[in-house]
């Protein structure tokens, strides 16, 4: 009886919390559609509605969006290439020093990006790969690789040993078993790792602003947005329109892949 009465109440309260939490996001969208002259009025809805900001911004930012896409995809490929075999080795094969490697992966995730950036800067300027897309891809992949290895090995641990043993009895090599059995079963984990690698590379500001700051159009969208922030007369309409563009992958992730997101977020934090 009381449950029946409280359910709509909880939904109402939940809607209130959600609205409060998402208010900054709403505000960003609101300002991006508000005419320049009306922005400082602070109206709660775009009463002087305009597409002008987007028209300007899309033309300005298209090269940066393209770079971000390339960097994101490159990071996904590199991350999967390194993480999937390592996950297989750590979960299913004999690896000397396995506990040490697992420990190093956890520490790797705790190292501040600013420390990594300093080291990379010194190495990159020696090699002459500052301000290049491959350089940025390599740096961005360090955000995702340790996470990827942990997620893959956690999942692959659950693959029944018998399946792999049967394959070996039929004469399949370890490589064969990995490619035609382990990888197909781990498809969902690969999607999760890929999604996060892409999102983190797309969102990265720290590596881009240090290792790729003079790269012109070869700088990602986060730097495109940063250019607007840095300019003296801050154009909030344009800024917010760029911010909305930079949020597109987030929206896609939430609409299409929410269950992968939750799966990834709890990896390493909650034991099952």
């Amino acid at each position: 009886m009381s449950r029946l009465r409280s359910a709509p109440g909880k939904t109402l309260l939940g809607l209130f919390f959600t609205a409060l939490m998402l208010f900054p996001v709403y505000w960003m969208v609101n300002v991006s559609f508000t005419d320049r002259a009306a922005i400082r009025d602070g109206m709660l809805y775009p009463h002087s509605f305009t597409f002008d900001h987007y028209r300007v911004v899309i033309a300005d930012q298209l090269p940066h969006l393209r770079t971000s896409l390339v960097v994101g995809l490159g990071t996904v490929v590199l991350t999967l290439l390194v993480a999937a075999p390592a996950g297989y080795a750590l979960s299913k094969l004999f690896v000397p020093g396995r506990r040490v490697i697992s420990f190093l992966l956890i520490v790797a995730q705790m190292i501040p990006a600013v420390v990594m950036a300093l080291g990379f800067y010194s190495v990159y300027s020696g090699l002459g790969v500052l301000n290049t897309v491959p350089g940025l891809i390599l740096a961005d992949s360090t955000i995702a690789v340790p996470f990827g290895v942990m997620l893959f090995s956690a999942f692959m641990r659950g693959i029944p040993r018998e399946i792999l043993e049967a394959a070996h009895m039929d004469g399949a090599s370890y490589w064969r078993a990995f490619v035609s059995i382990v990888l197909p079963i781990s498809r969902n984990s690969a999607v999760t790792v890929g999604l996060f690698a892409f999102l983190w590379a797309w969102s990265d500001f720290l590596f881009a602003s240090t290792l790729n700051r003079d790269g012109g159009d070869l700088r990602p969208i986060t730097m495109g947005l940063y250019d607007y922030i840095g300019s003296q007369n801050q154009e909030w309409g344009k800024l917010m329109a760029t911010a909305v563009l930079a949020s597109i992958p987030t929206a896609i992730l939430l609409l299409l892949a929410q269950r992968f997101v939750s799966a990834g977020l709890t990896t390493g934090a909650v034991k099952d």
Partner: protein
Amino acid sequence: MLAGIGFIAPLLAYLVIFYAYPLYENVSMSLHRFTRATYVTGEAPYAGGDIYREVISSAQFWPTVLQTATFVVVSLVFQYSIGLGLAVFFQRHFPLSVVMRGLFLVPWLLPIIVSATTWQWMMDADSGIINRLIGVVGSDPVWWLNSDNSLWAVIIANIWLGIPFNLVILYSGLQGVPVELYEAAAIDGAGRGRQFWHITLPLLKPVTAVTLLLGFVYTLKVVDIIWIMTTGTGSSQTLATWAYSMAFGKGASAVIKYSEASVIGSILLLVALVMGFVHLFVQRRQEAV
């Protein structure tokens, strides 16, 4: 055995080239006096612990440590409490609860630079929406982003950023609490409050430990949210933003100071290593139970 080594080899090579080597460079820079000229002349005289002593005895060091501690502790307390409150709120399903939980992830998934820009505009002293709302209540506008208040401004934004992480982890932790325990407690006449203190919190202890540990590490690392909102000026300077500004000659440090930045970097590295051991310890203890 050979197969194991073969499959792990790419990772090991990767860890050496892209972790160990840059980190070694970082530590080496903190022990040698690197200047801008070093990249031209290649000269960086060995300085031993001198640069560490200079940085630690500089007027900025201890205030920055204190601000970093404030930033981390206040952020964690609020992220955790709000995250836990929401997790308990969402613990039992109600209409639309799944959709709402999904929407709560948004702040965590947005590029930080996007959120930071939005908060910066909301906290604008003249036309920001926050001061406008405060004005409705009749209070004076707050100069959120000036040097005295900037620490609190970035803390507020950072709490907002951290709530989704805490909510998701604590929520999945709550799924492990058997419903029968609550039912038994209810039969014994325990109200919602007592159930929370005597069942939920104690059973959530392992998850809480990991959440706070990871939260600590993530918060200590934060650069972008602070950098975008205040460029780490005034009271919002933390160890991480200080290192960033010295390394690249922006914000609070107009001059590039590679070695000094690496000193702070190495200190942060040491903290990360210690936290790694704490994590190991916490995990071992949970496995033993």
